[in-house]
């Protein structure tokens, strides 16, 4: 990231940011949010929104706000494919790991919606461009995504809309959970040397739980980590659940399934023999979060049941 190069530009950004900030205060309809870095004031109904977190982009689109810019999703140089239609030709200002500060400045944002656990250094830099909102949510909890969605919606002044969408997701998950009581499920990414098992606590797995699955990571994921190291092929039976969701970073899910099946250790799993392996989009299932992602994941779950 061109941090050092952008000192001059960020000074410019600071001036622009201060100008906009002053404008916001002028309107006297500001609101105050509790963020991970203390209280931050934002103007009501911000118009120029930049999201630096996939969950923030998702929430914004869900409540009817189209941000100017966002970060790319994992394994792609654009936003996640399930959001592409709604996001339109949104500007990309970096990846989740490397934000291009200059591009953010160029968007002249009113507000920046950032990822939880944004490093302090970056926060200092970004908050000179515009009020930067970092959710204080605790990671890897069943309700983390709802908390974050409410936080971002509050920043955008759309509390009512977000409650609607969350309620819709909850209701749909509850309906799904009646269809398959207590089936076990695991979510993995496949590599030739073995499987990466995704944590029980990541977003998509909390939705699987909410829709009645008993999600298991085979006790191989360390606390607070998103996924395990590649599981030894000798231990694949730990992911032999009723349902196995196989996340791939490309759209050729069937190809990934075929490549996994070419491994004798994978092919002999009961779940494979029963044909209950479901290839799913890794961008959606292992990178995204938010109400729209929840809808899309529930779509996948429902499709798998049929």
């Amino acid at each position, binding site marked *: 990231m061109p941090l050092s190069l952008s000192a001059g530009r960020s000074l410019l950004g600071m001036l622009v940011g201060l100008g906009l900030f002053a404008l916001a205060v002028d309107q006297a309809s500001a609101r105050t949010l509790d963020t991970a870095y203390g209280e931050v004031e934002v103007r009501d109904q911000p118009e120029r929104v930049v999201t630096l977190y996939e969950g923030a982009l998702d929430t914004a689109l869900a409540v009817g706000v189209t941000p100017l810019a966002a970060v790319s999703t*994992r*394994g*792609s140089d654009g936003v996640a494919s399930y959001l592409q239609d709604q996001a339109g030709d949104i500007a990309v200002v970096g990846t989740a790991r490397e934000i291009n500060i200059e591009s953010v400045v160029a968007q002249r944002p009113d507000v920046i919606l950032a990822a939880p656990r944004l490093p302090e250094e970056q926060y200092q830099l970004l908050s000179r461009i515009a009020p930067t909102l970092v959710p204080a949510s605790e990671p890897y909890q069943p309700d983390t995504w709802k908390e974050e969605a409410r936080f971002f919606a509050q920043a955008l002044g759309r509390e009512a809309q977000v409650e609607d969408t969350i309620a819709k997701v909850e209701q749909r998950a509850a309906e799904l959970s009646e269809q398959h009581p207590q089936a076990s499920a695991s979510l993995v*990414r*496949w*590599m*030739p*040397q*073995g499987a990466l098992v995704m944590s029980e606590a990541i977003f998509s797995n909390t939705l699987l739980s909410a829709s009645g699955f008993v999600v298991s990571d*085979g006790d*191989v994921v360390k606390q607070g980590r998103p996924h*395990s*190291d*590649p*599981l*030894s*092929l*000798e*231990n694949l*039976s*730990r992911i032999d659940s009723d349902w196995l969701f196989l996340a791939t*970073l*490309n759209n050729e899910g069937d190809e990934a399934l075929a490549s996994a099946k*070419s*491994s*004798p*250790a994978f092919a*002999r799993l009961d779940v494979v023999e029963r044909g209950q392996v479901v290839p799913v989009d890794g961008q959606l299932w292992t990178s995204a979060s938010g109400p729209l992602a929840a809808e899309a994941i529930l779509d996948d779950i429902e499709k798998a049941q049929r």
Partner: protein
Amino acid sequence: MCQAGEARRPLPLMFVWLSACLAAVCFLSLLFGAGEIGPGASLSSLLGMREGAAQHAEEAAFVIHELRLPRTMLGLVVGMALGVAGALLQAVARNPLAEPGLLGVSAGSAFAVAIALMLGASAATLRVSVAQLGALGGCLCVLAAARMRGVGNDPVRLVLAGAVLSGLLGALTSMILLVDQRTADEIRFWIVGSLAGRHLEDLQAILPSLALAGVITLLIGRPLAALALGERVAVGLGHHPRLVRLLAIGVVALLVGATTAVAGPIAFVGLVVPFAARALAGPDIRRTLWLCLPLGPLVVIGADIVSRLVVQPSELPLGVLTALIGAPVLILVVRSQRLPTL
């Protein structure tokens, strides 16, 4: 380590001894794994004893025959190929630090495969030839560097040149990862080598080129030994140094490319194995090559066993472990007072 004076033990005896050790390690490799099938259960399964539930016995048989046996066989082939390739490269570069992994030959091979993967190739056979072409490119770079003034006669500088090449190719491979993240998982395998999860068909695909490499090695053993006495001596004995060197480089490319194609880049084996073989057999390249055959798999399979046991239920990539073993040896070689010129 043995002193040079001790190195006159009869070669056949040492060869048999090392082969016996290798057989023992292969056996251990069938017994130990990262899974729940421990050495006891493995042993009874190997001996044909049906112990406990039928399902359990079936699981043990599967793990041994379908998972541990293939990777042990792969380890045998990869170890031999890398050991021999290292010894040859060192003889040609006249440098005890010349090692496919250190000098960028493996990196060249892995980079070629990464490009092929990005362009959409997936066939195993294609991968082998692509990897070999990449290895050949890496070899030629090494040779060019070795012939540069001031680099060739200073082993450490050659390694520096190799490190630059490796770094460059590694950076380019990472760039492919950035440009085309869709194949990220596939390519990640080409950054650190591993024996796990490879198919025996892959092994079959590389056997022809390994056989060819073996035949050529047998033919150039004597001229290489003569070359070690000096270019003029070799010419006087009726050899063609340039041709011999070229053939040896070809063999290294065949061997390194083949192993990279099936197991990814595995560093330092080509350094450690010839180093140990020379310590046992003395400076004659023919004796060294013979001992590399059992020593190479000994190191590779031994490291592979450790890689399964340290981070259960996951496994460490083999390339990480060989680097852990190899780096101290590298330092030892560099720091030893008499850095032999080969």
